[in-house]
């Protein structure tokens, strides 16, 4: 064994950590031959001895009694606190569960109301438009009113005004869409009602010559073209008209000759006649 090896193992040798007998023997031989290593070995032995004394002196050292008492008190308190905590947790758990159920119920109800609100305004608008449609004549108004009154849709219950206002405030876009859809629906319903319950009848004026045409030209034949003109056009042909309805439009049949020129015109008014 050389000095380097001995100094590396000196601490382990002093602590009896090296159990190899041959290694211990060679170290003992080296110590006897080398003064420096002998000094280092003595230092190690002395240190081990002193450390052992310190260790022996403190072997009986223990924490004071009051610490155990404090710990046990803390343990009891903790157990009590834990039990209170767990009770509170249980209470919170059930409250949270109940709140979740209530929220779900309200959610479902709100969704159903929302769906109903989307449907109901259609009915309402259709019924409104059906009761007050733009009509050409009072008779037609009356006939449409009568027709709509007889439809089953008008018997459906309307949404309460407060709820409708709330829904329109909450979902303005959907309410506008619903109204638009309802208007379309009302038009379709109106047409279908008229088709089922009323017969249309056309009342026409006599043909009036257009321009400086000759009545004999009408004999040449031609083609009738249905056009729509403002009511005010009737006045230009010398026909009586209600000035209050001048902006309204009226249908007309134009007789177009073989040369493509308009020969004559007659005005046609479509009227609905109620079957029953």
């Amino acid at each position, binding site marked *: 064994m050389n000095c380097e090896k001995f100094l590396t193992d000196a*601490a382990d040798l002093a*602590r009896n*950590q090296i159990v190899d007998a041959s290694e211990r023997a060679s170290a003992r031989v080296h110590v006897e031959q080398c003064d420096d290593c002998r000094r280092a070995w003595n230092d*190690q032995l002395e240190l081990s001895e*002193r450390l052992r004394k310190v260790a022996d002196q403190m072997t009986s*050292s223990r*924490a004071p009694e009051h610490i155990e008492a404090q*710990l*046990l008190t803390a*343990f009891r308190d903790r157990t009590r606190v834990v039990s209170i905590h767990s009770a509170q947790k249980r209470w919170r758990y059930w409250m949270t569960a109940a709140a979740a159920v209530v929220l779900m119920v309200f959610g479902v109800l709100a969704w159903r109301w929302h769906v109903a609100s989307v449907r109901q305004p259609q009915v309402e608008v259709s019924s409104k438009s059906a009761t007050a449609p733009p009509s050409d004549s009072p008779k037609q108004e009356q006939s449409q009113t009568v027709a709509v009154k007889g439809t089953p849709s008008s018997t459906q219950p309307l949404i309460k005004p407060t709820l409708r206002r709330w829904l329109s405030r909450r979902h303005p876009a959907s309410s506008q869409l619903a109204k638009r859809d309802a208007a379309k629906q009302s038009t379709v319903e109106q047409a279908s009602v008229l088709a089922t319950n009323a017969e249309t009848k056309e009342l026409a004026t006599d043909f009036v010559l257009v321009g400086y045409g000759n009545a004999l030209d009408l004999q040449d034949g031609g083609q009738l073209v249905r056009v729509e003109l403002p009511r005010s056009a009737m006045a230009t042909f010398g026909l009586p008209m209600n000035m209050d309805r001048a902006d309204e439009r009226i249908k007309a049949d134009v007789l177009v000759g073989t040369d493509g020129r308009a020969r004559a015109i007659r005005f046609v008014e479509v009227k609905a006649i109620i079957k029953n």
Partner: protein
Amino acid sequence: MRTQSDPSDGELLQSMVAGDEEALAALYRKRQGSVYRFALQMSGSPALAEDVTQEVFMALMRDGTSYDSARGPLNWFLLGIARNLVRQRLGRERFYTSLADDQEDQSIVSGLQTVNDPLDELARTETIEVVRKAVFSLPLPYREVVVLCELQELSYAEAAGILGCAIGTVRSRLHRARALLIEKMRPAQEENSTADGVKAARCFA
């Protein structure tokens, strides 16, 4: 050898976690000594050692379920907590100077048994004091291995398990720590020998 009436640390811990106060008391009585001594040997302060001991078992009460028996005995776990707490406290208190140092020194030394010869007793007390101060002057990594391997008389493997490092690291740290201790104690020895020489010269004069 463990008997039926001597439950293991793991069993005591399980009972304690389940709320058994007696289990906590038994575990405390069984393990508080090593924890307290470790904290005392590391810090030199009985007050700090008491606080650390209490905090270690409070931590065990709080997080007892975090102990994994696969990672080592419960004693390692407790000493590991104590080590962290001591490091925290020493780090926090290193800027303060205790006015009760002398009192603490007395309290540590008071554990000495009285021997027949008062001079031997005095020499022994001085020796222990010198070693104790030398140990406290070591850097923390070296102090830890000295306390665990020399003063607590644990093996390298046990110390490595507590410190969470390799056995080779423990061994090399201990060798370095012993070399430092020898260097630190040598001036005191030389001073003592010089004083003895002066005394002898005076006597001869």
